[in-house]
């Protein structure tokens, strides 16, 4: 009964995964310290930022050079105390990027793999419960090959949950799926997280997935934590230009504070007023593409700040929205060099498209964010 212990299935008061590790990788050092509780944590980073390595270190599949990993009251790894619990003793469920289902075992046999030490009837009962929980009824006797991508993912999730893990690690859980399946699988994951109530880490390079599935967000860049906190906070006020980029901000300019309280956006050649001047002088300033507004009438401008004439350099369409590449001065517009990207719904574009240029763009002070680095 080592790997599956029914007694700990109930809600424990102290569910914490604490990670503080260093590991030298080929191009940089993975060096992170954070704590995850029962709210799901999204780990966002570009590919090769060390995200998967972080998960593998926590799962015990890789050995950090230094540091300490504790899960609830168990020390899983500690270089100071020379502790290194093997992966099979950690009771951490891991969902692999391509699911890693055993191809020679049926769905039911895959799910029951971690239940090996239980009596047969209990194995069957647990497997049946997981099958129904992950909506796999009727597919128990199929081989992984005979399942759709979404079904494979659910089977892998059921298999990881079967050992009643104390933490769950998901490595790019949606990247191998077709777009139309993602919504469905996301719903399943949200359902799982809601009932799991133990540390769950989800690694992704997709900022929208990171936002939808996690409560808290950890942004990883070249092995280091670039941001960590509530997701809304990080998306609204990215602490650095790197985090702004990773969270999908298209407009970032070098900046310099003026003595009159305005900020000079050096790459956009304009002077901006912020809602609130930050304590540390900004070196970058940013605004999200969908926050750039276009004024409908001349009268609307009265008393407003940060309004600039703009010329459309080119456009790029997506099914429902359109991206406009803007220039704030006509010479650069003529040269085909945009300053900013704005994103508007097609309806608005249809109303605007034939109006004479320049239009008037508004970079609302409350939408601008200044960044110290």
């Amino acid at each position, binding site marked *: 009964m080592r790997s599956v212990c029914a007694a700990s299935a109930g809600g424990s008061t102290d569910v914490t995964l604490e990670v503080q590790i260093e590991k030298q990788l080929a191009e940089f050092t993975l060096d992170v310290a954070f704590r995850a509780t029962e709210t799901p944590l999204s780990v966002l980073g570009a590919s090769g930022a060390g995200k998967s390595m972080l998960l593998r270190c926590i799962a*015990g599949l890789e050995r950090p050079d230094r540091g300490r990993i504790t899960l609830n009251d168990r020390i899983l790894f500690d270089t100071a105390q020379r502790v290194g619990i093997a992966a*099979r003793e950690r009771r951490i469920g891991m969902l692999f990027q391509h699911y890693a289902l055993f191809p*020679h075992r049926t769905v039911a046999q895959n799910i029951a793999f971690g239940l090996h030490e239980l009596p047969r009837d209990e194995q069957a009962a647990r497997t049946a419960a997981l099958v129904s929980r992950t909506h796999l009824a009727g597919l128990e006797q199929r081989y992984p090959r005979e399942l759709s991508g979404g079904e494979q993912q659910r089977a892998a999730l059921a298999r990881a949950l079967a050992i009643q893990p104390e933490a769950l690690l998901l490595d790019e859980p949606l990247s191998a799926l077709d777009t139309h399946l993602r919504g469905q699988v996301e719903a399943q994951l949200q359902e799982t997280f809601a009932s799991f109530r133990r540390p769950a880490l989800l690694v992704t390079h997709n900022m929208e997935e990171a936002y939808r599935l996690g409560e808290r967000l950890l942004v990883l860049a070249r092995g280091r934590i670039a941001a960590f906190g509530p997701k809304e906070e990080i998306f609204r006020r990215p602490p650095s230009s790197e985090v702004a980029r990773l969270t999908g901000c298209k407009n970032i300019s070098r900046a310099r504070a003026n003595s009159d309280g305005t900020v000079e956006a050096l790459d956009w050649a304009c002077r901006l007023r912020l809602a609130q001047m930050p304590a540390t002088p900004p070196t970058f300033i940013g605004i999200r593409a969908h926050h750039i507004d276009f004024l409908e009438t001349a009268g609307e401008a009265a008393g407003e700040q940060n309004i600039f004439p703009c010329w459309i350099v080119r456009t790029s369409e997506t099914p429902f929205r359109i991206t406009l590449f803007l220039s704030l001065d006509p010479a650069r517009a003529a040269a085909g060099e945009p300053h900013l990207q704005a994103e508007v719904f097609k309806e608005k574009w249809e109303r605007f498209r034939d109006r004479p240029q320049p239009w008037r763009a508004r970079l609302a002070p409350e939408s601008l964010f200044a960044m110290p680095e």
Partner: protein
Amino acid sequence: MDWSPLLISLATSLVATAVTLVAGLAAAAWRQNRAGAGAALVDGIFILPLVLPPTVVGFLLLLLFGRNGPLGKLLLQFGASVVFSWPATVIAATVVSFPLMYITARAALEQVDPHLLQAARTLGASEARIFREVALPLAWPGVLAGTILSFARALGEFGATLMLAGNIPGRTETIPIAIYFAVEADEIQRAMAWCAVDVGISIVLLGGLYYWTHAQRLRRERWGQH
């Protein structure tokens, strides 16, 4: 006609293949998670019998198991001597067929997706269970092909067997040795008969391998591996 060479050949090859299967798998599993100069050296030693002339292998075995060899001396203390006895045919066949088993088993095990082994680890399985229930079933077609190759190689062994086991009719005379001495003694009929037996066995083996891999391919298509 005296059928003893057939029985001796089959018994020798079966025992040698069984030993080779276990030893080859163990060696391949041991080698799997190792790298570096030491492992490469061991690799070289394991594969050596494949590239050395069988007479050289036989001669080295003779030095090892002979009256003054280290293993020969050890065995002599228990009152045993393997040189020019039936076990010598098994030893010779095992040593020359081992590299084929080792190479194919290693290649088959290396082909197993490492993520599957890692997944098994996170699910609480011991390394022995992972080998038995994940790695081996997925590597099995390759391992079986290696087994058949090893059996065929053991069956055809001549040089090392002659050096170590000699030609004692009814005890160490295998089919290849019987053929050689039949030709030597100008008994062409007898040589031809044994050749026909050897060709027959080989055809049965290859046919069996073909049918088996075909059935296996159908099954693996269901698993989604090709």
